[in-house]
Structure formats: C-alpha cells, structure tokens
C-alpha cells in the first residue's frame, strides 16, 4: 500500500526533475478526493519546507464541461505558492506540458472563513478583480489525469501571471467578457460566468470548503477563480494575451 507521503514524494520529484509520473489512479483506482487532498497537503508541505509560502489559491474544474468530463459536480482547489507568481516572462523549460487559460483573480481585502459564506459575503471581502492568466501543468504523464490525480498534483498548477490593476467590483463579474489570443490570433472568448456561474460563487465555495480543513483565506491573498475557456497548449516562443472588458489586458511570453 502506497502512502500519501510516498505519493507526495513522487509528485515532488516529478516537479523537480520535470519527468512526469504515471497516474496515481492507475495503481489505485479507488483513490478518493479526500485521499488526494491528503497527498496535496503533504506535497505542498514539502515545497513550503523548501522556503516557499502560500500567496493564494486556485480553483480548477469550474466549468460544467470539465466537471462532466471528470464525472463530478464540484470544482477542486489547490494552493498557489509565492514561487509560482510571475511577471510576464516565463521559461518554458520550467514546465513539463504547459497549457494556459484566462481567469478572473479576486484579491481579498479582509480575511474570509467559512462555513456559511454566501456569494454576497464573498463580495464584501473582495478588494477587487484582476485580469489573470494561469499556466496549468501536470506532473502526470500526457495529462492522463483523473480527479484524484489532479487534486494530488496541486490542482495541476504551473504558475500565474496577473495584471497589476485591481478593479473594484461595481459591475457584474458574470458578464465580464474576455478574448484570449495566442501569437496575435483570437483563439477563444468567454465571460465570467464560465467560472462556476459567477467568480464570487467560486470564491464562496472555496472559503466554505477550506473551513472544513480549518483554513482561513487571509487578507491580501488572491484566488484564481477558474478558466473562462478551454485550456490552450503553449511552448517556447509563444505570446499569450487575455483582454478583459473592465479589467484590462494581461500577457505572458514563454521563452
């Protein structure tokens, strides 16, 4: 029987060496979401022990299409560490099989802790919304992930790039439009509602779910609320840009 610690060590090694591993669920098809969060906690602890810190959180599997594909009705989450937050220039060799997706990030002005956090309560804790791009990456070979694989693997986080413009919420985040361009061509569009119906609902779900682990979202943290479109493969030489109505642009380049 492989322990949560051994699984975390395998993922940690894959992240360090950039050599992906076989799906954890190949060896243990019965692995549950709870089992996987236990792995995630240990994987994150190893990175924190190296001197990193938690800057925020990300939600994954927030679209109905992704949830249907995974056979679930809830999103998943993972921590975003300080070392994963970048300005616009990234090195493709730091990733295994990167993809990019545009998201709305929410920045907290006050701590937020569940249970019982409503969408309105979540809105009151938010200082503003920020245009963001997430790089997702998988330590599992060929992205052959099941739910327990991606949860264990820090919800497949690669890195994040955020605009420096924090925009107060005096508009409906559900309706905020976004066009996503790869090397100058629009490859996808979306609106805020793609993230669990409303990015604020995504934040409330996260606060309530973290409460079960006795974790509070702290003032100053950000939350990546989920992709507004299907993820797009990227590699060295690619320029990626997301233009948001009301929030402005955010861009990254892969060298």
């Amino acid at each position, binding site marked *: 029987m492989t322990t949560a610690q051994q699984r975390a060590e395998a993922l940690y090694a894959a992240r360090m060496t950039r050599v992906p591993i076989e799906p954890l669920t190949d060896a243990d098809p019965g692995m549950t979401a709870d089992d996987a969060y236990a792995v995630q906690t240990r994987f994150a602890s190893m990175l924190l022990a190296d001197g990193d810190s938690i800057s925020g959180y990300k939600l994954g599997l927030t679209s*109905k299409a992704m949830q249907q594909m995974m056979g679930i009705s809830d999103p998943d989450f993972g921590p975003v560490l300080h070392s994963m937050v970048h300005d616009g220039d990234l090195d493709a060799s730091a990733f295994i099989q990167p993809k990019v997706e545009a998201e709305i990030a929410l920045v907290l002005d006050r701590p937020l802790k569940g249970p019982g956090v409503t969408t309105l309560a979540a809105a009151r804790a938010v200082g503003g919304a920020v245009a963001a791009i997430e790089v997702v990456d998988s330590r599992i070979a060929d992205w052959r992930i099941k739910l327990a694989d991606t949860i264990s693997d820090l919800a497949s986080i690669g890195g994040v790039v955020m605009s420096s413009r924090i925009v107060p919420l005096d*508009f*409906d985040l*559900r*309706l*905020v*439009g*976004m*066009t996503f361009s790869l090397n100058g061509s*629009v490859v996808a*569009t*979306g*609106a*805020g*509602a*793609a993230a669990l*119906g409303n990015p604020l609902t995504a934040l409330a779900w996260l606060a309530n779910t973290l409460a079960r682990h006795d974790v509070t979202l702290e003032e100053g943290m950000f939350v990546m609320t989920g992709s*507004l479109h299907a993820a797009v493969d990227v590699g060295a030489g690619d320029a990626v840009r997301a*233009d*948001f*109505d*009301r929030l402005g642009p955010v861009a990254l380049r892969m060298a």
Partner: protein
Amino acid sequence: MDEQQSSSDLVEGLAARLAEAVETRTAISSLAGEREFTVDAAYDIQDAALARAVAGGETIVAAKLGLTSRAKQEQMGVSEALYGWLTDRHRLDPGQALDSGRLIQPRAEPEIALITSRDLEGPVGLHDVLAATEAVAPALDILDSRFAGYSFTLADVVADNCSAGAFVVGNPVPLGSIDLSLVGCVFEKNGELVGTAAGAAVLGHPAAAVAWFVRKLSERGKGLPAGSLILPGALTGAVPVGPGDSVVASFDRIGSVGLSVA
C-alpha cells in the same frame, strides 16, 4: 433547352422546394447532394425564395449572417460566412412566445444586433460600419434548417436563407464607446448556463462581420440602406429548443433578451 433556361429552372425549382418545406414544416435532404450548384447559384435560389415570400405579403425587416465563427467555418470546411434575410414572419416581439409548431427543428443562439443610421455599400471596413452604427441590441436568433438534422453543404444552407427561423431583438442602446469585441455574453437555457463568450467570437468583431456582409452584397450590386437591422452571427454554439424551454442571452453593457417556447 439552353443553359441559361436550365439554370433558371434549377433556381426556381429548388426555391419552390425550400418554400414548400417552410410551409409544410417538413425537413428535406440535401439539395446539393442531388445536383451540385455553386454558392453564387445558391444566392440566386435564396433570392427567388425570398421573392416568393415577398410576393406572398412578407416584408424584409432584417439581415442575418451565419458561419461567422472560425470554429463553425472549420467544421463546415469553408473560409467564408454567409447571409440571409429575415421578414416580419420571422419576427417576435420581446415577451412573445415562440410557437414551436411553426418550426421544424429550432435552435437558439445569442447575438449582438446592430442598427445602422447611414447607407453602407462598396468596399467598407470595420470602422465604416461602426461610424454607421447608431445602436446595438441584445438578440436571439432562432435557426430552423429545412435540412434534416442540420445536415447540409454551404450551398444548401445559403439556398435555405441561412436557416432563418425566427428572431427576437431586445431594447436597443446607443453604441457610444462600447468595444463590441470585449462585450461579455452569458447564454442560459432553462436557468442553466450553456455558454459564455465575448463579441470577438463573431469574426473578431461583430462590425467586421457586417463589413464582410456589405462587401459581399456589393458583389451582387446591392447595398445596405440606413435603418437596417443586422444579426451579425452567433457568439456561442446553438442549443436546441422545444415546447416549455426558455432561453436568455445576457450581455454586459447592452442588456438581455429572453424567449420562451410554447
């Protein structure tokens, strides 16, 4: 029979069959599958069918474009959009239910409608269209292909008036400084989210789609008069609708429009 006569018979014959499919609400199979005809001939068939409708008392009230997303063009293996015409027969007022018994296989899709205040013709570009656009409005286009299962070629769907079925346009707002390419759209069916998008899903910008349309019209010696209403193409995929269904398209900065199906 000379070639011109034969071509005119083809056009009138196919226009009559499409008109009959509309009247009897009976799907037919691909016309191009029987006998190949060009897209240009397809527009002749569309014109002939429309002339019949107008002779029957209908009035043209709007234009509509189709295949304005790269995804749909790739799916059809074409690199061009298409257009058709909407008459008062297709028009629903906001709040008016769609009688599904009128249609064969309706599908709904959200659009940003443009209303012009100047004539447009010739080699126009996006900015000419924006300068001529007075207002924009939330809209729902209801497709109703006369071809069974929406199985058709480009020439088929052009001949079939771009699958025109019905449409509803909500409250217009001045275009002002709205960047239509970034306007967000949320499309719901029976209260469930079925798609999100931004205006750029329509050929990069809805006004770019209208510019294409005007240039295309000028090839046939036509223009778009001031006061035209144009549905420039869907922002998301179309969803099937039937009795009891309701759909709502909500747009940032523009407002929303809904439709229920009886």
